[in-house]
């Protein structure tokens, strides 16, 4: 291989890895313009953001606490994308995962902890699996577009939760006090996840998520199942010709994707809230997609990506409080990052395609 080629090669590698970071930087620059227009000094604002997210133990633990569900959802999104389907239904799957886990833990609270804790997680996972599997099945059987169906199923999940939290699952203490705040009773302590740093919300779910990221990597690249998921995602026709049951793998990709989102919901109530509350999904079903894209749809890439994205969520929150910018700016900033990440990715792909123009 000629020398200049090797440099070209490594150059591509470096720009490939650096691009997400550049994208974030680009988004921050545009965000700075917005801040200037609001009459806020962008440097103070960003200093607040950075300090808030990473400046002290509290910031860091908050970042990691947020990164946990992002990573779990992100893993689910990776699987779906690799399998050639798009799962926008993370929110609904998280909600139902959390609802089922809570209901299970409360319902069987007398069971021993060593049994109850894994089964509670499993309950959430299974709920997500079903909720993701349905749109997958609809797509495989009837060609229903999974983007539309998952979005609609988010609504259904939301309403199911609304109904349950105001009816059958409403905390008896709330009824007794007559306050009727829509939330469930507290989960039995046996299913609470260990807090890794005292007096913070940071819990052991983070460790589980990282282990699962490695597991997903193995699943996708080291097993026959992952091989088939990727083959179907890249070329359904060739997979069909090779005798791979394509529709089964479409359902499987969606179901696995939903399972990870459902687990994220379960882990969130078990680790952070200790009960089912409204709004616990916190938009993770969507930001998880961004985290996955940010990590180049690679399960290991999703680990740093969700940490970065988590810090952004926490930091933006802090920034909002300390320099008094409207919360919508935070949302705008997130949107900008998505835009930059996706655009930079397209740019790289276009460029490398031009270089290696499609073979005939």
């Amino acid at each position: 291989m000629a020398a200049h080629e090797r440099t070209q090669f490594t150059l591509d590698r470096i720009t490939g890895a650096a691009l997400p970071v550049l994208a974030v930087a680009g988004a921050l620059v545009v965000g700075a313009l917005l801040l200037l227009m609001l009459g806020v000094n962008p440097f103070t604002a960003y200093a607040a953001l950075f300090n808030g997210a990473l400046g002290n133990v509290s910031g860091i633990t908050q970042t990691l606490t947020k990164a946990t569900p992002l990573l779990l959802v992100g893993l689910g999104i990776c699987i779906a994308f690799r399998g050639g389907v798009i799962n926008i239904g993370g929110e609904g799957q998280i909600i139902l995962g959390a609802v089922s886990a809570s209901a299970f833990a409360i319902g069987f609270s007398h069971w021993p902890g060593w049994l109850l804790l894994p089964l509670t997680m499993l309950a959430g996972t299974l709920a997500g699996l079903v909720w993701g599997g349905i749109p997958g099945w609809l797509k495989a059987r009837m060609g229903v577009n999974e983007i539309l169906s998952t979005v609609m199923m988010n609504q259904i999940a939301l309403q199911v939760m609304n109904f349950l939290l105001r009816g059958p699952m409403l905390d008896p203490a709330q009824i007794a006090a007559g306050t009727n705040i829509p939330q469930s009773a507290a989960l039995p302590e046996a299913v609470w996840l260990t807090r890794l740093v005292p007096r913070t919300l940071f819990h052991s779910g983070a460790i589980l998520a990282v282990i699962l990221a490695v597991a997903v990597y193995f699943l996708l690249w080291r097993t026959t199942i992952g091989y088939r998921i990727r083959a179907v995602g890249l070329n359904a026709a060739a997979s069909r010709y090779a005798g791979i049951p394509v529709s089964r793998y479409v359902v499987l990709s969606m179901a696995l994707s939903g399972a990870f989102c459902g687990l994220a919901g379960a882990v969130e109530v078990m680790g952070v809230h200790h009960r089912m509350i409204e709004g616990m999904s916190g938009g993770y079903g969507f930001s998880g997609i961004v985290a996955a894209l940010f990590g180049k749809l690679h399960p290991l890439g999703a680990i740093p990506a969700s940490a970065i994205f988590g810090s952004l969520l926490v930091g933006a929150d802090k920034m909002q409080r300390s320099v008094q910018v409207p919360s919508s700016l935070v949302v705008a900033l997130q949107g900008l990052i998505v835009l930059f990440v996706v655009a930079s990715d397209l740019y790289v792909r276009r460029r490398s395609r031009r270089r290696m123009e499609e073979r005939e």
Partner: protein
Amino acid sequence: MRGIVKRFPGVLACDAVDFDIRRGEVHALLGENGAGKSTLMKILYGLYSHEEGTILLNGEPVSIRTPTDAIELGIGMIHQHFMLVDTLTVTENVALGLPSSRGPLLDLDRVAARIRELSETYRLDVNPDALVWTLAVGERQRVEIIKALYRGAALLILDEPTAVLTPQEVDDLFHILRRMTQDGHSLIFISHKLHEVLNISDRITVLREGKLMGTVPAQGMSRADLARMMVGRDVLLERNRSPVAQGSARLVLENVSALGVTGHESLRGVSLQIHAGEILGVAGVSGNGQRELAEVIAGLRAVTSGWVEMDGLDVTGQAAGERTQTGFAYIPEERMHDGVVREFSVSENLILQDHTRPPYSKGIFLDFAHIAQHSQELVRNFRVKTPGIETPTKSLSGGNIQKLILARELARLPKVLVAAQPTRGVDIGAMEYIHQRLLDQRETGTATLLISEDLDEVLALSDRIAVMYEGRVMDIVKREETSAEELGLLMAGVYPER
């Protein structure tokens, strides 16, 4: 083009190549798969950059960085895969991407008029109002030619234009090309079919492994001469078939009917048997049910009546996956699309069917050591030219992707093999090799269905030949007892008088 050098990771695709083309000539470019033909042409058309060398046009050095530059200089290229928008009309496709003479308003009438004019001059027989998806392959190709002519191409590059055409369509194309050269157009013609090259070209340039082997006048060359220049050794153009004792019927189709892609009945009551150690050739103009026949056997298309038996077992209701696992192999016609996952590496593509079996996996875990060993072996035995087994398949040359698929299917030692156009797009060296492998398989007792548009190939390899016409098997004849003439008549739906 002078001293053109182009490298890809791990390969030197063009090694100081000189190439020139004169006004009004057909210059053929020959070479084995991966010799660098397409690469050289893509450089000329601005799709690839080159590292060294210069391109001169009428004596002036020019810089061609994008296809737009090339088009402005009067260079056009017809890719093997057409770049047309299916849902638009011919006129709209031609006008696409061009400035309109009426500013922001479309000038489709004027475009259509010009298309008619061009179509008339070169007898292209293209209807400007036709929707592209309704056109056959040959017609689409002519639309591409019109597109290039409309953009003022004086030099036209045709990369394997005949690979997808029926023999009749090839003749038509050659008439068109001759008319174009009479008008002063220059043509670069790439093909692996030597008789075509000898028939149409004025001069021939041969590449081997990126190096220029020489440029010779077509006059006075023979197929054997060209083959030797390309491959560097003598190539057998004749096939040796030893007689093989035929066994029991391995593949039986009984009165099979099936619907085609369009929803019309495309197979009508087909019955045939192939025995162990036999090659049954299927001749016929493409589109007469061959594709459906192959898919029914593969389990990719449901039958509406009749049944399919493999090795005495009724497999009519079996899914494709089950059939592959019990000794069936299929080399699909649209291989680039249906045969490989282009983003996968070479070794990943080599286990597309068998990844769930030992030794390629244990339980659900892939066994990379065995996969690598198997891949190395196949790449070596089938002479697939690739920098390595981890190379993404899409960066292989067209013919080498074909070889990869053949390697995979033949190495599975199938009991029943369906091979659709197995040598389309491969070079003559590879064709010799593939034919030999098909004959070897036959000797080991494989029952082979060989679907090919190349009558010479069918006649060279088959024991018996079935001719298809409008979804029916017109007749099944013994190879020794038939002739190209008889087959030709049958292919046209006429029973010859005996």
